[in-house]
């Protein structure tokens, strides 16, 4: 498989550069995925962009895993348009203090993606030029995509989440 050798190549290059900061490398459905840490994330992203030609930021989002020590995963999808290769980077950060450096200095397009992630998950992107809510109203008070907030009105008895899968 061509894709796998490509991914392997990137993996080796990243390990050379960042050593133990690149962990949990896997390849679900052919998409190279690894976990890194928030002190090196901007270096990793810049390195991927400048040296390994992942020129395109596809997406930034987050996932909430309640009850874990580092309960929020910030997920970056990058794309190398020339080699037609994608890569996924995850950074797990603490739920109590969800901060991570901003990627807006690497890609300007990260601006709204980070605002959306902040709005829905409360992830504070340090150094972001304009970190405001984007989809919800400013005085909402909560970050609604966190798992502790139920979808339905919690006072209703006829529509408990557990009957509907969660």
């Amino acid at each position: 498989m061509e894709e796998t050798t490509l991914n392997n190549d990137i993996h080796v290059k990243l390990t050379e550069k960042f050593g133990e900061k690149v962990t949990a490398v896997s390849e679900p459905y052919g998409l190279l995925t690894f976990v890194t840490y928030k002190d090196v994330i901007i270096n990793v992203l810049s390195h991927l962009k400048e040296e390994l030609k992942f020129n395109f930021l596809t997406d930034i989002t987050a996932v909430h895993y309640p009850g874990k020590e580092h309960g929020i995963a910030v997920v970056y999808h990058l794309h190398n348009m020339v080699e037609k290769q994608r890569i996924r980077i995850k950074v797990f950060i603490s739920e109590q203090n969800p901060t991570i450096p901003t990627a807006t200095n690497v890609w300007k397009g990260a601006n709204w993606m980070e605002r959306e992630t902040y709005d829905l998950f409360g992830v504070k992107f340090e150094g972001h030029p304009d970190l405001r809510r984007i989809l919800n109203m400013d005085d909402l008070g909560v970050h609604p995509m966190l798992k502790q907030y139920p979808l339905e009105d919690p006072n209703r008895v006829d529509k408990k989440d557990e009957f509907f899968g969660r």
Partner: protein
Amino acid sequence: MNHNHPVFTDNDPQSELVTLNLGPTHPATHGVFQNVLQLDGERIVSGVSTIGYIHRAFEKIAEHRPFYQITPLTDRLNYCSSPINNMGWHMTVEKLLNIQMPKRVDYLRVIIMELSRIADHIICNTIIGQDTGATTTFLYLFQFREHIYEIFEEVCGARLTTNIGRIGGFERDFNDIAFAKIDKFLKEFPKALKEFENLLSRNRIFIDRTAGVAEVTKETALEYSWTGPLLRATGVDYDVRVSDPYSSYQDFDFEVPVGTSGDIYDRYLVRNEEMWQSVRIIEQAIVKLKTEPKGIFHADVPEFYLPPKQEVYNNMEALIYHFKIVMGEIDAPKAEVYHAVEGGNGELGFYLINDGGRTPYRLHFRRPSFINYQMFAPMSEGMLLSDAIINMSSMNIIAGELDA
């Protein structure tokens, strides 16, 4: 300026700047979103975009629904080309479940997706015409959007929010009327599109209004993560259908049109050429369908594909599968998957994490309108108000996709 608190000027006629509230319900925005603009005469000094007016928390709702119930949510993203969203979602789940689709289903999907792309581009391009003052073009080509919706109606029963297809294929085969309507469309549409081009492409007024307006370089477009016709108009030949083929797009012979300067005229030309290419793809698909065995409209995966009602009532196995699918008890791998399709406005991505529960653990939509639109306010600075309006139409921002 502080973007949190846009400066509202008073109505003093001597005052230098004027504040204009473009939206949330302004006819020129074609959707519910607001821009607070500071104007110096007719020139925009600065702008602040406010979005979220139709935010419906689809990502949250999706965490509470089994896979098959998420399709109607995707309808309401880019509602001008719902079938692309529907099928993008179906293909995401099929990728997760490792379902191999029969070629005939792929080709049927390609037909529907390309028809939606034409419908989407018709809306955008005719509205550019409308906003530059050419109402004729709008009224003239829009009837073909109607014809496309008639085809959808024949295939799935709905027109705008289609909920077309199922995970694993289509809910029923295309009938003869549908094929007849597609044939009629393929016969009539090229003539009308040619006439539409004759009305606009070499029109002096139209070129004066659009050429050289809102130019964007490749570098800026990539920096802002633009995709779709907007990116291609700047000269980057990125199209998900080619770079990451899905639904057997690799079997088709088509070209990816690119522009040079990224201005509004180039975007218009790129979209027009894409309509021609879509027609080409549909014609090829119709030919390819003839060599495929008839009557196959879904993959043979009873554990994931909703059985027909007739069988649910008369067949124990079908009843069990039906119950399991409806209750979200399907045996899906615990994994995460990213799947992208080329939507009307660019790369529409689905990032799905499944933890083995009845519903997705997390589903994120990469919505091209949302990501494309963030450049509107910065690029409007220094532009004439009337140019900014056409710029907005040419970006084809669909409020549903913008806010999710």
